[in-house]
């Protein structure tokens, strides 16, 4: 899988790592999505996030998404990096970089990747507030 780079880490993520991995001579369009920890959720102040992953399966599911991208779009290289553990405000939770020959497909492929990741990858996010904590999306 020399064209796919998947990582789960409890250390801060550097978007340049994903970006550098996907950079290649055949591709003129790289789209890198960076998801960061936001201060407010429905008007309530978040102190930090905490991510938990079922790591071996999360890596499999992220690899599956990357392969899907290469089938559905003219993507040549994909990198998906996800943080676990406590994540402070403004820190990076996820980086997805996709390289395609042209920009339009790169935008679409990157959006597909983050949308699918949120639906299928076994990673859980907890928002920590002053007065409690909530597992995101757990309840309807």
């Amino acid at each position, binding site marked *: 899988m020399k064209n796919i780079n998947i990582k789960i880490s409890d250390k801060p993520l550097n978007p340049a790592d994903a970006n550098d991995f996907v950079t290649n001579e055949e591709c003129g369009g790289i789209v890198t999505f960076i*998801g960061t920890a936001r201060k407010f959720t429905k008007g309530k102040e978040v102190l930090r996030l905490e*991510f*938990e*992953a*079922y790591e*071996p*399966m*999360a890596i*499999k599911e992220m690899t599956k998404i990357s392969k899907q991208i290469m089938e559905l779009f003219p993507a040549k290289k994909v990198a998906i990096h*996800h943080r676990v553990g406590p994540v402070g405000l403004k820190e990076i*939770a*996820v980086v997805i970089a996709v390289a395609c020959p042209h920009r339009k497909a790169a935008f679409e492929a990157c959006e597909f990747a*983050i949308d699918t*990741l*949120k*639906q*299928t*990858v*076994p*990673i*859980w*996010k*907890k928002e920590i507030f002053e007065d409690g904590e909530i*597992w*995101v*999306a*757990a*309840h*309807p």
Partner: protein
Amino acid sequence: MILKLTAFGIAKDILGKRVLEIEMERNSKISDLKTVLLHQYPDFSKLANLTFAVDEAYQDDGFLLSANQEIVIIPPVAGG
């Protein structure tokens, strides 16, 4: 047979622990396990969805369980 379940996210909070050993009849399916869990831990019924992974892959209600599998309770995911 005794099944060993591992729980993440809110599922771990509902169980009050990471790993639960549960006695089930042989040839039980995921749907049977779900019924027992919902009975013993009614809070699972409040979740937006409840799925299961066996040996690191999602499986449906009809999937047959056995004691040597790695069974994981997957509450609603929220990566990114």
